[in-house]
């Protein structure tokens, strides 16, 4: 079953979570800017900003018209029905399984002399891609 709109409790919880996340992200970003190598802190803050904007867009879409939002958006905001939750669970399970070989391959690449920052970047992109592809494929099949 799904809730057609976010309840007051869900809205409060989400707002609190976002505020805590903001404090943590800004704190870590400032720490990295102060003590991290190169532009790591700035890059971290830019990435976090993009992620937060994307999350805000998802929240806005789910609040305004949950029936027009995607399964992923509803499941991600805990306002989906049982099928939405099932899809997300199965996609995350695939991602979890894929994380082992991907991380292993990244470790081997670093061991062979690849630049660590580049390997970490590609590892993150690969995991995101696996999650998205798994979700889309599972959603089409069920």
């Amino acid at each position: 079953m799904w809730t057609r709109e976010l309840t007051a409790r869900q809205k409060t919880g989400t707002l609190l979570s976002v505020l805590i996340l903001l404090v943590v992200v800004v704190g870590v970003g400032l720490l990295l800017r102060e003590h991290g190598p190169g532009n790591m802190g700035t890059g971290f803050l830019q990435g976090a900003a993009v992620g937060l904007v994307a999350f805000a867009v998802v929240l806005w879409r789910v609040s305004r018209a949950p029936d027009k939002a995607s399964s992923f958006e509803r499941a991600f905001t805990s306002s989906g029905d049982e099928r939405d939750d099932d899809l997300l669970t199965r996609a995350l399970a695939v991602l979890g399984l894929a994380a082992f070989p991907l991380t292993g391959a990244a470790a081997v690449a670093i061991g062979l002399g690849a630049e660590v920052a580049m390997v970490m970047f590609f590892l993150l992109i690969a995991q995101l891609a696996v999650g998205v592809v798994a979700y889309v494929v599972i959603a089409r099949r069920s």
Partner: protein
Amino acid sequence: MRNEVRRLRLAAGLSQRELGEQLSVSRQTINSIETEKYDPSLPLAIVIARHFNTTVEEIFHVDP
């Protein structure tokens, strides 16, 4: 699992969206159940059966 949801919905003159709204699930979920790609949980199956004033066994079948 085979089911009679589509037949019952059409007999009631409902669209997938309308039935989804009445059952508090998404239109995609109704579509997935009707095309037999998704098997609903037991609670949802009971809600569907009650909605159409019938029993779960009359809506959902498993081929022997």
